[in-house]
C-alpha cells in the first residue's frame, strides 16, 4: 500500500490534490465556535487521508497498467522465441 510508504515520500503530483483540500480547510478565517464537536478535525483529516489514499491508489493503478503492458509485451515475445 503506497500510503503506508508515506505522504512525505510521495511525488509532488500525488500530493497536489491533497494539498488543495488541505489549504481549503486551513485557509478559512472566521469567528471561533468552541462548542463545535471535538471530532470535526478527525472527520476533516479522514477526508484528506481518503483523498491521499485515493490519489495514491489511482496512481498505483496507472503504474501497474503501464508496467503490465510492457511486461506482457516482453513476456509474449519471450514465449514466442521458446516456441
Amino acid at each position, binding site marked *: 500500500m503506497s*500510503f503506508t510508504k508515506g505522504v512525505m515520500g510521495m511525488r509532488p503530483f500525488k500530493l497536489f490534490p491533497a494539498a488543495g483540500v488541505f489549504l481549503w*480547510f*486551513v485557509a*478559512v478565517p472566521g469567528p471561533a*465556535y468552541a462548542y463545535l464537536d*471535538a471530532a470535526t*478535525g478527525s472527520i476533516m483529516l479522514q477526508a484528506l487521508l*481518503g483523498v491521499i489514499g485515493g490519489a495514491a*491508489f489511482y496512481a498505483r493503478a496507472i503504474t501497474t497498467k503501464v508496467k503490465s503492458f510492457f511486461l506482457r509485451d516482453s513476456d509474449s515475445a519471450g514465449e514466442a522465441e521458446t516456441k
Partner: protein
Amino acid sequence: MTIAIQDAGSFRDPAGRVYLVNEKVVRAIRPAAADRFRAVASTGFLRTLVEEGRLVDYDDVSSEMDGAAMDNPALALSHPRIPFISYPYEWSFALLKSAALHHLDLQLDALRYNLKLVDATAYNIQFIGVRPVFIDHLSFDTYIEDEIWQGHHQFCMQFLNPLVMWSKVGVAPNAWFRGSLEGILPEDVARFLPASQYFSRVPLMHIFVQALMQRSSLTKKTRSSIKSRPVRLSRAAFKNILVDLRHYIAKLVPPKDKTVWGDYVENTSYISNEARAKAAFVTRIVSSTRAEAVIDLGCNTGEYSIVALKAGAKRVIGFDFDHGALEQAYQRASTNNLDFLPLWMDAANPSPSQGWAQTERKGLSDRADADVVIALAVLHHLVIGRNVPMDMAIRWIVSLAPHGAIEFPHKSDPMVQILLSQRPDIFDTYCEEAVVASLERCARIVEREVVIDGRRTLFWYERSDVA
C-alpha cells in the same frame, strides 16, 4: 425476584447495559439493538475472537433471565467476571501500547468479516494478567462501504496521543488522563510535541494536521462545508490508516530515563538472605490463608508478586508509581505468562471514584477485592515521605484485604535515613510501638519477624472484622 445491579460504568451505549445479577455479569441488549447484535454474531467473528482469547466469553442466557429486573431486554448475555477492572490512566506504557495494538488488530480483522468497531474507547479493554481482552460485545456493527472511521478521534485521544507524548516527549500521561477521562486532545499534544515529529508521518497527520483542522473547523465557513458534503473514506484508505497506525505504535518505546526504583532489587542494601526471609514470610501468609487474589502495594518489578504466585495465589495486582519498575514488571509477567498485572498508582493518592455522577470509574477501594495485601517497603514512604500519620497509613493498608504483610523499616534503616537526610525528623511516632498500637486497633497481629539485623520488622495481621 431477581435483583440486578446496574454497572455504573455502562450507560453510554443505548444498545445495552451491564448488570450484576447474583454475582454474575449479565449484558442486557435492548430490543432496538438486538438485530444488530444477531447480525454481528452470525458472522462467527465474535466466537473466533473468544476462542483466540481476544474477547471476553459470552453465553446467550435470554431464556433463563428474569427480564423485568433488567428493563426487559431483547437478549441477555452472561460473561465471566474480569478479576480486576483497571483503567487506562493506571496502565504502564507497555499496557497502553498493548491495548492500542489490540484495538487496531480487532478493527483490522473485523473488516474482513465486514464488521467494524463503533468506537475506540480504551475502557473497553481490560487485562487478565497482562493479556488484553476486549469486553464490549455491542461495540461491533456491520461495516458500511466508504463510511468514515467513527472511532478515529477517540483512538487518538485515548491511545495515540498519550503514547506519543510518553515516548517522544518523555512525559507519562497518567495523571493528565486521570483528570481528563476522555483522553488527551490532539490540539493540546500538538502544542508541546517537538518539531522533529513533523517529519514523522503519523504524528504529522494524526496530531499536527488533525489539530490544525480542528482549529480551522471552529470557523463558520468550514462548519457549513462539513455539513453539506458527507465525508467518504474508502475501505482501502481506512485499512491503510489502521495499518499505518499499527506499524507506528508497534515501534514506539518508553522513554529511557533512569528509573527511581527499577534497579531497586539489585541496588538495595539487602543481602539475599534478608530477601529470602521476606519471601518466606510472604509465602507463609499466602499459603496458610489459601489466598486467591493478592494486592502488592509498591510492587516494584514484581519480585514478591511472583513469590505470592508461587505460594499459590491465583492472581496478583501490583501497584507502583515508578514507570521504570512497572515496565520491568510487565516484561516479567509477559515473558513468564504470569497472572500478574502491574499498575501505576501512588499509594498516597489512589485512583478516586470519578466520571459521571462520581461512580462511572470506581476508586481503588471499590475495586480492591483481595484476600491478602503485601505492603513491603511502603510504610516509610507514606509516613515519612508523605506525612501520613502512622495510624492512618496502617488503617488504609488494612482496609484493602482481610490479611496482609506490612514491613516496618526502623529509623536506623539506610532507606529511611535517605528519606530523613534532607528534612528535620518530626516523626516522633515513627516507631515499632506505634505500628503495633495502630495494628491492634483494627487487626490482630498473627506473626512478627525481625529481619536485616533488627532494622526491619515484618507484621502479619488479620483484620478484626474477619472472625
